[in-house]
């Protein structure tokens, strides 16, 4: 009998995993609520892939506890893996076989009827190529096939490890659409990425990883409130020399040119006064655009803040 779904679909506590002298995970804590989309952000080597491998039990931990759907992957790994779908960083497909053969192989392993193969391929727009050898597929086609394979058995937990690396925009959108669709159906999704824009708008929780541990975690809005306390406004003018002394204006923290002038303010309340001052000084403003906090801003701000704290 399938155990009931716990509130936390995945939880890792003080997890350590080493490879020789390298501590890939160094006391990682991670809590993924059931039915949520969690994005693991971090540079290469942060431990994202190792985390995914520990979640399925493909890799053993050296310390700490891991629970997935209420089960320990090292003890009940077969059941955990039966209820989990993984899209690895490389699609891990059999090149000499056709797309159909690859999907049928997965269907047989997970005990799914072969009739599910074509609909899964159609869902990702790859059905037309099922008869072709995978070795002849483009990067986008390979990823679409890997995605179709990962969701063939309708997993409770989907782990996506850099799923959009090297993809064209259309394929990237297919991945993000899949995440939204599965999240809408109550599935738990963990996505590793270092491409910040693709996590934008889909993440219920963002976890910033670095050196094998979670540096910060929370809802994007909460993290933005905590880390992006100083709003940025992008400004431009017909005569840019009129903006030369913006940095010295009251309420302005800093100003830097990057295509346009990016002005960091103490609070957004100071913006009307700043505009009035600049206009009074003769500036003919062509652009005043308060920047909404993006994941990219958040990521770099979190990185900067955490580095400063160290």
């Amino acid at each position, binding site marked *: 009998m399938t155990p009931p779904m716990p509130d936390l679909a995945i939880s890792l506590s003080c997890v350590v995993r080493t*490879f*020789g002298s390298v501590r890939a995970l160094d006391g990682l804590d991670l809590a993924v609520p059931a039915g949520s989309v969690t994005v693991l952000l971090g540079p290469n080597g942060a431990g994202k892939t190792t985390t995914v*491998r520990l979640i*399925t*039990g*493909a*890799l*053993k931990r050296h310390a700490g506890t891991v629970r997935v759907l209420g089960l320990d992957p090292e003890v009940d790994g*077969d*059941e955990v*893996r*039966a209820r*989990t779908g*993984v899209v*690895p960083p*490389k*699609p*891990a*497909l*059999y*090149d*000499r*076989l056709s797309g159909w*053969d690859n999907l049928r*192989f*997965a269907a*047989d*392993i*997970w005990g799914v009827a072969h009739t599910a193969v074509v609909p899964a391929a159609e869902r990702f727009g790859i059905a037309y190529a099922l008869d072709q*050898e995978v070795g002849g597929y483009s990067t986008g086609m390979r990823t679409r096939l890997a995605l179709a*394979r990962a969701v063939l058995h309708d997993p409770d937990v989907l782990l996506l490890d850099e799923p959009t690396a090297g993809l064209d925009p259309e394929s990237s959108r297919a991945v993000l659409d899949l995440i939204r669709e599965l999240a809408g159906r109550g599935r738990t999704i963990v996505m590793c990425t270092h491409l910040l824009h693709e996590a934008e708008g889909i993440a219920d929780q963002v976890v910033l990883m670095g050196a094998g541990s979670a540096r910060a975690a929370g809802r994007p809005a909460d993290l933005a409130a905590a880390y992006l306390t100083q709003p940025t406004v992008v400004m431009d003018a017909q005569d840019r020399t009129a903006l030369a002394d913006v940095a010295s204006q009251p309420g302005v923290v800093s100003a830097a040119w990057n295509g346009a002038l990016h002005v960091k303010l103490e609070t957004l309340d100071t913006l009307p006064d700043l505009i009035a001052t600049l206009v009074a000084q003769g500036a003919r403003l062509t652009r005043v655009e308060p920047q909404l906090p993006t994941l990219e801003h958040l990521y770099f701000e979190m990185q900067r803040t955490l580095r400063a704290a160290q």
Partner: protein
Amino acid sequence: MRFDRVWTVARIDLRRLFKSRDYWIPMSLLAGLFFVIIPWIMLSIVTSGSNAASELVRQIGGVLDALPGPVRDNVQGATPAARAAYAFAVYLLAPVAIIVPLTISSAVGAHTIVGERENGTGEFLAHSPLTEKEIYLGKLIASLVPGYLATAVGFGLYSLVVNLKVAGEFGRWFFPTSGWWLLIVWVVPPFIAIALSVILWVSSRVRSTAAAQQAASLVSLPIIIASYAISSGLIFDPTLAAIGIGAVAWIIAILGLMSGSRALQRERLLGVAIE
């Protein structure tokens, strides 16, 4: 353990193999060479009645005369040429029945696990609900089947060649003999399994297919030599001792495979546990 999943792993490996012409064409040629072409040529020479044949018949006769009496008595044929043809067909090519399947299965086995790691597909298997034993058994079957299938087909073709070329000397089809049946059914399979247990153990531990093939060659060489000697002896004297040797080989094979199955771990499929 679920045998339907074992068969799934084996089937996908066999399907990949079938698609790899660069593998199975040379292996088919190897089997064809040893089971059909060489026997056909040699038996044609022995039964041709030419000067070269007379010299060959004389040399084989000398060898047969040197054998112990009971063994010599097993060699059938009314004429020296018939006895030479019989000896050649029944005795001299017996080791081929071991070498061909061992070579073919070793080549498959050396690649099967490390190849998953090299291609990145090991990651897929590691994240799948397949147990390590199911993966191992599937790989074992996929390695065993091509070698044994080649042997079974080769054995059939070889029987045909022998009977077509030599049966005229005896007035009846006489091949396969009881010794050959014993060899093919009872002795060859465990020897392939022994070799594969070592090769799969190696394949799950090394970093590359090239390294696996080198190591497999080294470890399978003594097994080939031993099986060569044993198979020759069995054909000459297919007695209870031969059955006993087969039984011992089966026991060693089963123990070897049980031990080898422990070498396959998920972490090795990911390529992170090779230190």
